[in-house]
């Protein structure tokens, strides 16, 4: 079968006129200078034809190490010497204990160097893995990043994709020859597949400048976390950010922004598994991570992808000593054959594991409801939450009251005339809630510590985190951040 399609757009760099290296925007000197604070750049490698260039400098005053593919030499292909530049940059960042930012634009290993280049690329992966969870690693993919250049970013904590960034293991030609699939670089490894489907990319940028700014924001949040100052927390009435009807789903983003200091929010994996929101930001001036159910998407259910996304985020925050705020409004795990076969048990277990091993302060707020297995997974008291708050009227239960009485009183309900069934159900549900449910019962049992009003919530969260930080200064997990 033949399919006719418009010819694929040529790769971006092919459209550009050939420029001398001194004027080529892909020159790593320019890219590193654009990443780092003005005047802060100092090279720590030779500016030669190795294909990589490394520097130290600052972003918003935070010291970092940075390296950049040299796409002006053999399309940024990675050889023995260039890979050593990256490994040394890692040694420097580990010694200084500072974030490292990698700017990628590379076709992968240098073919001409044969297995030597593969060996050298493998040494980068090894250095990245040894640094994992110890120093923040941020990658910015500005052009094609193929093969080894794809797995480099993938091993790091946060991946930013520029508009011309393309990430794939095997390119369109190989895909076509092996599987017959006709695909261009954009559809194979551009913003759409990696932002929405694969979860490889955390942040999508509209321009190269924006991509570098995203990396600066994340490096500053993780590298200069600041000091929690609860007395500086301005109170806001967060109740207005939820709809009046308890049944109505809503977008949780305004609540996430409402909890965090204004203008500090950086959402990671915004389009992938959007039923959970994961964001870095500041509260009372200090960096915190937020995990929030988003009822607008899948009703806020947890599913296999969102549990995995949240688990990775929790582990990253734990590794770097970033306290967590967990905003809970969850009806349960998403039911379905697809979910079970997709490994919702295995992938959901990652979130239980991530929270349970977490040593940073982690404070939970139940806004409306939390049911069943998802109740536990969203940093419940039983997993070792630092503090669990709930808003007045929140439901903490195994399931909704009506669903519960349909199971508990199945026989009795069958005997009731159909026209009366709803009424009897509601009566039984009210009785059930009096006995088993309701946030007051949860406080009595000790699975909720305190009921807080939406207007006092920011202060309560900040105080709880500040108290835990004082009790356990510098608490952070001692584990890597495997890309779950």
């Amino acid at each position, binding site marked *: 079968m033949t399919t006719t399609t418009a010819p694929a757009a040529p790769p971006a760099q092919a459209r550009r006129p050939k420029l001398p290296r001194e004027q080529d925007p892909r020159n790593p000197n320019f890219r590193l200078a654009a990443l780092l604070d003005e005047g802060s750049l100092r090279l720590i490698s030779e500016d030669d034809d190795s294909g990589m260039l490394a520097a130290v400098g600052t972003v918003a005053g935070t010291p970092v190490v940075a390296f950049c593919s040299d796409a002006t030499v053999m399309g940024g292909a990675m050889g023995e010497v260039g890979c050593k530049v990256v490994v040394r940059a890692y040694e420097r960042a580990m010694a200084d204990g500072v974030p490292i930012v990698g700017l990628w634009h590379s076709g992968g290993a240098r073919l001409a160097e044969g297995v030597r280049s593969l060996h050298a690329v493998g040494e980068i992966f090894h250095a990245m893995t040894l640094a994992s969870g110890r120093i923040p690693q941020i990658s910015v993919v500005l052009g094609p990043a193929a093969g080894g250049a794809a797995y480099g970013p993938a091993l790091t904590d946060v991946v930013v994709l520029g508009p011309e960034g393309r990430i794939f293991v095997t390119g369109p030609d190989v895909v076509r020859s092996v599987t017959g699939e006709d695909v261009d670089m954009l559809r194979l490894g551009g913003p759409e597949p990696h932002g929405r489907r694969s979860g490889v990319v955390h942040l999508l940028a509209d321009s190269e400048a924006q991509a570098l700014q995203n990396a600066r924001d994340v490096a500053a949040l993780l590298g200069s976390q600041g000091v929690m100052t609860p007395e500086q927390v301005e109170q806001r009435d967060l109740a207005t950010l939820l709809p009046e009807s308890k*049944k109505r*789903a809503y977008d949780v983003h305004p609540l996430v922004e409402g909890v965090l200091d204004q203008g500090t929010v950086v959402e990671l994996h915004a389009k992938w598994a959007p039923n959970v929101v994961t964001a870095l930001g500041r509260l009372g001036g200090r960096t915190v991570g937020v995990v929030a159910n988003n009822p607008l998407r899948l009703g806020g*259910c947890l599913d296999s992808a969102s549990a995995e996304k949240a688990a990775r985020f929790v582990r990253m925050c734990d590794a770097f000593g970033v306290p967590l705020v967990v905003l809970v409004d969850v009806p349960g795990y998403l039911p*379905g054959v697809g979910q079970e076969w997709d490994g919702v048990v295995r992938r959901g277990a990652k979130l239980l594991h991530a929270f349970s091993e977490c040593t940073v302060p982690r404070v939970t707020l139940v806004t409306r409801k939390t049911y069943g297995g998802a109740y536990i997974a969203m940093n419940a008291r039983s997993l070792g939450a630092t503090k669990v708050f709930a808003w007045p009227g929140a439901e903490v239960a195994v399931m*909704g009251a009506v669903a519960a009485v349909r199971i508990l009183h199945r026989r009795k309900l069958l005997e009731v005339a159909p026209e009366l069934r709803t009424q009897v159900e509601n009566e039984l549900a009210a009785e059930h809630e009096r006995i088993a449910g309701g946030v007051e019962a949860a406080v009595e049992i000790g699975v909720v510590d305190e009921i807080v009003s939406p207007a006092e919530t920011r202060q309560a969260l900040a105080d709880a985190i500040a108290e835990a930080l004082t009790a356990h200064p510098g608490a952070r997990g001692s584990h890597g951040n495997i890309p779950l």
Partner: protein
Amino acid sequence: MARSPKSVQIQAEMVANVMTVYVGPGDRVRPGDTVALLESMKMEIPVLSEHDGTVTAVNADAGDVVQEGDALVTLDLA
């Protein structure tokens, strides 16, 4: 080369009852606009458009049960 406008579907993310479809053919829809209201997991879940476009077809009616991936509304992108 003249191109016909690109058509996209706004789909149900999960099994749901359709409560309301708010738009009809010819309506202009912008990103963030609510095009339908679904009922699932005992919740009323608004479906928002990510796109800017004009409705060319309504693929589901109030009372329908839709599966994950079923089209609710079809748009021609602006």
